[in-house]
């Protein structure tokens, strides 16, 4: 009996001890802030009282905020999320509450926001994060401020949606880049919509029309004519073709109304901004003026070359026949013929070097005569102004100088050690001819050509293609004198 009383007493003591321990633990928990609500009883009715500030006002305020907003504790756990935040991440609050913000936000955004709420003593600068929201990239400016919620310290984190602003800025930048690309293109670039109304045109394009291009219709602002071979009648067809998925490249066209280039090479490509059908057409117009000019020049040169080759062949044939007729031996023919062809070739070389435009008389003289004299010799003197001769006169004079020099070597001033040649170029006057005088002196006594061979004919006739051209050959006792008349019309 006594034992059972003692046991009961001991059990009561144990129970009381446990209650005291529990009471102490409860008081300690309240004191150190690890609980934030208590149950109080009154008149048989229990009631829960929340310790600390009333957080409902704070929640109501957050709920009314336009940006997404959450309250998190110092560990980043969600204590509250407003409707906008739930709309972004998860409609169901029961799935969000108590979760860490790093579990909710996508990877890189979670890390960045995690750093934002790691500064519990000061406010960190807002940062911009972007992530996919239902498959669409969105941009948010995230800021965090330390707050007290009930008994805990935490953060209020807001997510301001910058997506539309970022999109607008991106679109504006893209537009600026596109405009800069169009503007910096050297060729004319025109963008038109599906109705042929011009929406963009660069400086080079403006030069093709007398009116302002943007806002105007393409076919009236820059009317284009296409050669029959292209099968295109007007620019509208070009645009239509490219809108239909067939871009056209390098179509030659003529712009009759253009104040600038008339010949252009047109390309048209569809303007694809989205996956939908093309919104317009991008046309580039390359100025073909220079190319056309070059082509015309090339055709002219081809005709000229053909003409010259025929003339030269005829001349060579004539030289061959006449040389053969005037030479008595094969060796004599070979020497004379080669010398004449080489003289012709020397002048041709000079002319080719000068693009067949004109040659200096002194150059021709140098090529034909100087090879027969010693370098630095004072036996050759040229006085008077130089002349620039057109090809016809240059070739003729080259042959004449060759024949005179050959004669001087064989029989005249250059046949001995002491003779000299003076070439006097007379100044240009109003006369239709310009005279050049070849004078030999100091050579052996001169006799007239015993037999007037082809050399004499070359000298006499080479410049006779014009009534103002020709030569007069005099056999003075002191040496040969040749008066050469060059037609003024062949002097540049």
């Amino acid at each position, binding site marked *: 009996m006594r034992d059972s009383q003692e046991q009961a007493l001991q059990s009561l003591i144990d129970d009381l001890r446990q209650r005291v321990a*529990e009471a102490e633990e409860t008081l300690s928990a309240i004191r150190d802030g690890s*609980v934030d609500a208590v149950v109080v009883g009154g008149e048989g009715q229990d009631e829960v009282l929340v310790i600390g500030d009333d*957080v409902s006002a704070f929640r109501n305020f957050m709920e009314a905020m336009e940006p997404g907003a959450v309250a998190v504790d110092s560990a980043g756990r969600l204590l509250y999320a407003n409707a906008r935040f739930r709309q972004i991440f998860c409609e169901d609050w029961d799935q969000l509450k108590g979760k860490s913000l790093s579990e909710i936000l996508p990877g890189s955004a979670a890390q960045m926001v995690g750093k934002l709420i790691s500064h519990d003593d000061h406010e960190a600068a807002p940062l911009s994060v972007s992530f996919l929201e239902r498959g669409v990239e969105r941009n948010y400016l995230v800021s965090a401020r330390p707050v007290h*919620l009930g008994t805990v310290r935490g953060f209020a984190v807001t997510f301001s949606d910058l997506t539309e602003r970022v999109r607008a800025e991106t679109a504006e930048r893209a537009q600026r880049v596109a405009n800069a690309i169009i503007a910096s293109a050297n060729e004319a670039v025109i963008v038109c919509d599906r109705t042929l109304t011009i929406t963009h045109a660069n400086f080079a394009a403006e030069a093709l029309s007398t009116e302002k291009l943007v806002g105007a219709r393409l076919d009236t602002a820059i009317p284009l004519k296409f050669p029959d071979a292209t099968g295109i009648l007007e620019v509208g067809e070009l645009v239509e073709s490219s809108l239909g998925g067939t871009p056209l490249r390098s179509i030659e066209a003529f712009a009759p109304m253009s104040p600038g280039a008339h010949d252009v090479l047109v390309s048209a490509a569809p303007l694809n901004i989205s996956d939908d059908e093309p919104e317009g057409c991008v046309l580039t117009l390359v100025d073909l003026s220079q190319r056309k000019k070059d082509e015309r020049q090339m055709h002219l040169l081809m005709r000229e070359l053909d003409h010259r080759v025929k003339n030269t062949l005829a001349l060579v044939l004539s030289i061959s026949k006449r040389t053969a007729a005037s030479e008595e031996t094969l060796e004599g023919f070979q020497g004379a013929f080669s010398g004449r062809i080489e003289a012709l070739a020397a002048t041709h070389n000079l002319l080719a070097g000068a693009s067949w435009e004109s040659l200096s008389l002194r150059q021709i003289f140098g090529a034909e005569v100087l090879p027969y004299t010693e370098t630095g010799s004072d036996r050759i003197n040229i006085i008077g102004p130089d002349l620039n001769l057109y090809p016809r006169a240059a070739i003729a004079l080259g042959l004449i100088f060759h024949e005179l020099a050959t004669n001087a070597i064989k029989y005249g001033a250059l046949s001995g050690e002491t003779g000299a040649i003076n070439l006097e170029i007379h100044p240009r006057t109003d006369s239709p001819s310009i005279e050049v005088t070849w004078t030999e002196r100091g050579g052996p006594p001169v006799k007239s050509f015993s037999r007037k061979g082809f050399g004499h004919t070359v000298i006499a006739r080479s410049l006779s293609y014009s009534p103002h051209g020709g030569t007069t050959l005099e056999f003075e006792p002191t040496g040969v004198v040749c008066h050469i008349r060059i037609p003024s019309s062949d002097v540049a």
Partner: protein
Amino acid sequence: MSTEDAPTRKLILYVAGETPKSLAAISNLERICREHLPGKYRIEVIDLKKNPQLAREHKIVAIPTLVRELPIPIRKIIGDLSDEQKVLVNLKVE
């Protein structure tokens, strides 16, 4: 006793609506059980804001409080369960 041999814990967490400490206690308890008692626990969350009279069964005064109802004897852990070691000792896991 290893975790594998441990009987299923029946845990009752008393909370007061969505106070910060209540939310923290739910989050902490779920994480600890998930990591240390996989498949060996049953959690019942009782919101005393909605049903304050339920506090009497386990003489709950401070919220949040976790009650380990099974295995006996009953153990109580008062607070938001942020001290993981303390929780594990009381759940007899460590």
